[in-house]
């Protein structure tokens, strides 16, 4: 079932996901090229996380087709998972394990060889400054440290596609910078990244293309220049474009109301 050559790392065709009366994802079409860093933006509840979960087979769409790295997600989700590194919105880790036990577990789950596993765990622990704390139970880690462990567990098996939901949340500036640079290096190696973030500066600086979701629909899709053109806001930052396209730009009256 696994295809070795594919024109799109992610191919989403007319997917719909309903939760009761709410259409969480509404007829979305999207194609992400191999080696691309793609940012999926949108206000809370706009359908970003649901879309990402559907790509891993964690949520079943009501209709539409999903193809990841040449594999039909609905037909063979395990094969997709083997090739993808995933960090969920709020990663819950096995808190009764130590950091190194958790990463050892992840390495085994992805079938890594012992030597490669050992080497990679040590590299990542050092890079993200978790050295010296890897033997502590995860329950004693701060939120940022837990996020680092979740990121390492997504990177360590060298996935071809990274699906990262708010990957930099809770990270200290140095670690955030390392992760950003690392994603750029992975891009050069052909690794595709799909990430969501509410920090628009990060998306602007990091992503090749950006998709903006609102009420389950993909409102806009393109490079920064294309988005500026769409919003008719030349030389603007992503924040202004985002607020204009999502129709949430009229902030001033809200602030004035609060000040009363």
């Amino acid at each position, binding site marked *: 079932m696994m295809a070795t050559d594919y024109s799109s790392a992610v191919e989403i065709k007319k997917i719909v996901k309903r939760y009761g009366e709410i259409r969480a994802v509404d007829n979305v079409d999207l194609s992400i090229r191999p080696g691309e860093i793609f940012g999926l933006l949108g206000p809370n509840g706009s359908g970003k996380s649901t879309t990402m979960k559907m790509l891993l087979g964690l949520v079943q769409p009501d209709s539409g087709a999903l193809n990841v790295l040449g594999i039909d997600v609905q037909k063979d*989700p395990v094969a997709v998972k*083997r090739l993808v590194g995933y960090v969920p919105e709020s990663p819950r880790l096995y808190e009764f394990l130590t950091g190194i036990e958790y990463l050892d577990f992840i390495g085994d789950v992805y079938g890594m060889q012992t030597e490669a596993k050992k080497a990679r765990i040590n590299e990542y622990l050092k890079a993200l400054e978790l050295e010296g704390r890897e033997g502590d139970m995860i*329950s004693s880690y701060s939120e940022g440290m837990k996020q680092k462990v979740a990121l390492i567990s997504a990177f360590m098996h060298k996935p071809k596609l990274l699906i990262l939901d708010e990957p930099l949340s809770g990270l200290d500036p140095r670690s955030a910078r390392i992760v950003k640079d690392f994603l750029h290096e992975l891009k050069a190696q052909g690794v595709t990244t799909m990430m969501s973030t509410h920090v628009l500066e990060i998306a602007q600086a990091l992503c090749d293309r950006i998709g903006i979701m609102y009420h389950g629909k993909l409102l806009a899709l393109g490079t920064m220049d294309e988005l500026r053109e769409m919003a008719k806001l030349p030389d603007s930052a992503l924040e202004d474009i985002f607020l204009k396209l999502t129709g949430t730009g009229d902030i001033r009256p809200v602030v004035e109301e609060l000040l009363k």
Partner: protein
Amino acid sequence: MNWKNVLHLIRIDTKSGRFLRGKRLTRFRESRIFIYVLYGGSLALGLVVGALAGILYVSASATDPNFAALADQAMLSLFLGLPTMVLIYSLILTMMQQIQRSGTKFSAQAPYWLPITWGEHTLASILTNLIGFPLVSILFITPAIILFSTFTGQVVAAAGTALAICAAAFMASAVTEVFRVLQVRFIGAIYKSTGRAAIWVRFIGSLLLFLVFYTVYFYVVSGTGGIYLLQTIASAQSAIWFIPFVWLGMTLYSFLNGLVLQGIAFVALSLGFIAALFYLATSLNRRYGLYEPPAITVSRGVYAPKTGLLGRLGFSTTEGALIRKDLKAFTRRRELMFVFIIPIVVILAPVMQGLGQMGRPVPAEASLILVAVVFLFPSAAMATMLGTFMIGEEGMTIWRIYSSPISPKSLVKSKYFFVVIFSLAVLAVTGTVGFIAFHPSLRATFVALLESILLVFALGSISLSNGTKGADFTEVPRPRMIRTRWSFINLIVCFLVATAILVPFVPYLLSSFVPGLAQPFIDPYVAAILSSIIATVITLIFYRISVKNAEELLKKAET
């Protein structure tokens, strides 16, 4: 002391029970009437019981003149003993409540950033501890004795007893609060000092706690120990007057015997002791209320992958990783350690019963039943229970299983292996105890062992299939692991299947117990073969169902 703050804190704490009760968390509605039905009901029941007892007292006194004197004397004894009795059971109940709370996940940490003093926090915590059965019992006892005393003319004594009961319950809860804070600090200190061994300290400590708790429990329920203890305390308060916990009882004793000055002294002492306990609890809360136990460091910088044995047994690296992870979960997660209660209880119950029967010969039939109980029951119960936990215990971390390349077959294989190995380990321990305690014949031992193993395999596969189908990943306020409906279904199916597996032994057992039937018409070994066939078929069927359920589970990851 801002009493409004105390009331607000108590109200918040009582609402934390919503997580336990409420299934629908969106558009949440709650009827206030039903919250207080329990307490109103206890009060009403107390009044009814008091009134009925009073009417009985009046009618019995009319026919038997001696009855009134005897009843009055009995009531006075009850008044004297009640405060200490309430103190003891309130202490046990509030402590049990604390044990239960330590297994829940929601944070009970004081919102220290709010303008609330530690005294208010402590008072609210002490009073909240009493909500539940301690409060229900107080609401039942006090109106009952006061109303009854209007018939006997002991209203003042009853009112004094009612006050003493309330004070005793508060005293007990304050002691629990002191222990709660100390326990947090003490355990933290143990972790810090023991470092790598901390998880074993916690594991063995928990087992010891269960062992001590159930030893006391069975001592109380299996003999006259508890009643004797209470009677002794109630009647011998004068002898142990120097112990502050009996000062409330001594107060009543002094006043009822006309020793007014002594009574006043004990009132002052009791109030002083309660104030001291409250001060101690507040001081400890102020000091350790926000105490964070230090990190448990298991290893330092040494990476030691363990792949050997499970790999040689034919498990893939994924399956081996899952099994090792679960092994760590059951020795490190406090709420999962409760599974060890079953073997402890099953071993302790007959042993404590045996202590009560000391010196008396055990009949052969009884010995056979005890052997069956000690061999068959713990491992079978463990398999029945563990299987239902194995998927649900993942809790919110289930996303890891969902998002990892784990096939349904691998998931079931690793979880099933764990259930079987763990249950067989329990069998090894309880079987050894059973063999030493009851000296069964070799044939009985062999058959009991074989049947236990068959039950473990069959019940393990059934419970795993039900545990997968009915998995509940709710963690707050406590890990649920399986939905109630599926837990019941599992119990019923496991009971029926266990009966079916053991059915071939019925003729043999009948011949042992029914005197008329001399020879069994099925030899135990033939019965064992039949039983093996039944168990194997059931195991295979339910193993396949487990895989099917796991396929469904992984597809429906969104739920």
